[in-house]
């Protein structure tokens, strides 16, 4: 099979000592192995798997002993028969592993929900757990269908701003725009991402002046606070506080580990955004 780099990866037998080098592969592999009771096949997960801010698999990761940091020596000491990495792992890490005769499978994209489903399928094939991968993707697809159904019922497309922290109220105003998974979530939930409509891409840091001129119906951000706390923060933040629609805009706060997930766990974020949009535009339609 071909990996994200377009390299052919051939495995003679199902891998039994897998090291996973990214949170995305940690989450997918742990989900696959948990349903079939084969977590022993994971020799290591990435150290981010233990961080409750970002990881959806903190508990499951405890069953895996090894940790794949950037330390190659510890990874090699585990004598892995497969390393699953992400396109954002350092190229020299991948290079060293391959020179040490470890097969490497590099996951490709993480910026659309389809790409995440494709990553699940690929890892299912690689571990010869196609059935479990299919089941995982079916749950994922169900959440996406529900969001789609919600989007269809919306009488109009709500204007949404996705917002990634504001750097200590110091005005590093970072938005989510086209090309980010966050943007894909807003679009799938039926919203119009205002940052993308401005022609921005990726995670742009914009001028406070631009924000003041926007009138979103909904603001989505990652975090653990309440919507009211978010509103309070924004009412004191540069640019945001001059925004006329801020007082009535709906605030949606999604835990970072869901909003930032690059695995099917991101479905929880999709569901929360979708439900939030439904409440904003058509109150009463959703529970």
């Amino acid at each position, binding site marked *: 099979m071909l990996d994200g780099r377009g390299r052919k990866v051939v495995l003679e037998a199902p891998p039994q000592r897998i090291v996973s080098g990214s949170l995305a592969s940690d989450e997918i592999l742990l989900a696959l192995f948990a349903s079939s009771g084969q977590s022993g096949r994971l020799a290591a997960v990435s150290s981010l798997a233990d961080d409750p801010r970002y990881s959806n698999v903190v508990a499951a990761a405890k069953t895996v002993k090894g940790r794949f940091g950037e330390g190659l020596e510890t990874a090699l000491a585990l004598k892995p028969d497969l390393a699953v990495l992400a396109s954002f792992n350092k190229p020299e890490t991948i290079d060293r592993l391959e020179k040490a005769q470890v097969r490497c499978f590099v996951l490709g994209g993480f910026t659309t929900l389809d790409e995440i489903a494709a990553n699940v399928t690929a890892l299912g094939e690689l571990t010869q757990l196609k059935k479990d991968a299919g089941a995982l993707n079916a749950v994922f697809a169900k959440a996406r269908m529900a969001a789609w159904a919600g989007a269809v019922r919306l009488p109009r497309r709500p204007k949404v701003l996705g917002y990634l922290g504001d*750097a200590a*109220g110091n*005005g590093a105003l*970072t938005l989510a725009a086209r090309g980010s998974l966050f943007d894909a979530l807003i679009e799938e939930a039926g919203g119009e991402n205002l940052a993308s409509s401005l022609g*921005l891409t990726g995670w742009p840091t914009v*001028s406070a002046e631009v924000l003041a001129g926007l009138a979103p119906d909904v603001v989505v951000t990652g975090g653990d606070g309440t919507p009211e706390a978010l509103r309070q923060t924004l009412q004191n933040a540069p640019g945001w*506080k001059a925004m006329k629609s801020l007082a009535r805009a709906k605030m949606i706060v999604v835990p970072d580990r869901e909003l930032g997930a690059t695995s099917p766990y991101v479905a929880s974020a999709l569901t929360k955004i979708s439900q939030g949009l439904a409440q904003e535009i058509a109150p009463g339609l959703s529970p």
Partner: protein
Amino acid sequence: MRFGLALLALLAALLAALQVGAADYGLQDVLKDETARTVMLEIRLPRLIVAALAGAALSAAGVLSQGLFRNPLASPSILGTEAGASLAAAFAFHAGLAFAAWWTLPLAAFGGALASTAVLFALARRGERNRPTPLATLLLAGFALNALLGAGTSLLLSLLLEDFQRSSAALHWLLGGFAGKGAEHIPTIALPAVLGFALAVRLAPRLDALSLGEDVAQSLAVDLASMRRATFGAVALLVGGAAAVSGAVPFVGLVVPHLTRSMAGPRHGTLLVLSTVNGATLMLLCDLVARTIRSPRELEVGVITALLGAPFFLALLLRKDRP
């Protein structure tokens, strides 16, 4: 005359900076449109004032540092003031203090600036029994202190890397900029800047005497120890105030006094006043570029000043070496 020209340039820069921005409004829209009024008066104008004050403060600090070290290529950063501000800010990000309220980060940066300057001053006073610490020693001590503080900042940053949001926020700060600065930041910079400037004005004549050499200045009844103390204090106030609102903006404190000396002459009184005005002008222009070159995105102004300042510095060095 020279002062009039400098003021005129400042006014022109201010008008240009007010006229252009990410939002498509200018002065002419202020009376017509409520959003325009908000953007112009609540976002753009306060930010410009903060930027101008920071540029003025850094330049005044540059005049003092060059005078103190009797070196036209000295920059306030050799006192470790900016590095101290950066370390304290990095710590505030690491500890999460930076996210508590708008004023925690400025306060941390300002405190770090004062503390690091105090450390260098204490080092400078060691062994001052018979004569003041030689300038060369002071320079090297500043260099070592800078390296140490920089290493501390790097350490905290590398610890922060695991936390995407905080590390991105910290990086934005360390690059130096005025994005999102508002009316509440004006007193944050204005207070230390005015205090530092008042001190600097009193120091100016003695800096002239110091240009003859530390020995000669001393023989002319200049009290070197108290003068160094006051100069360190003024630089800490000026640079600390600027760092509190803008992070580390490099090269302004070096380039502005140097440029101004060619129009104002070397006398520190005139040089100080004109550099202060020119510093405000330069910072407004650099910030204008930072705000508009990738609009509606923003660049950090520190990137612009470094891109302009570093080649300028090189050109100065080469010209100075020519026989």
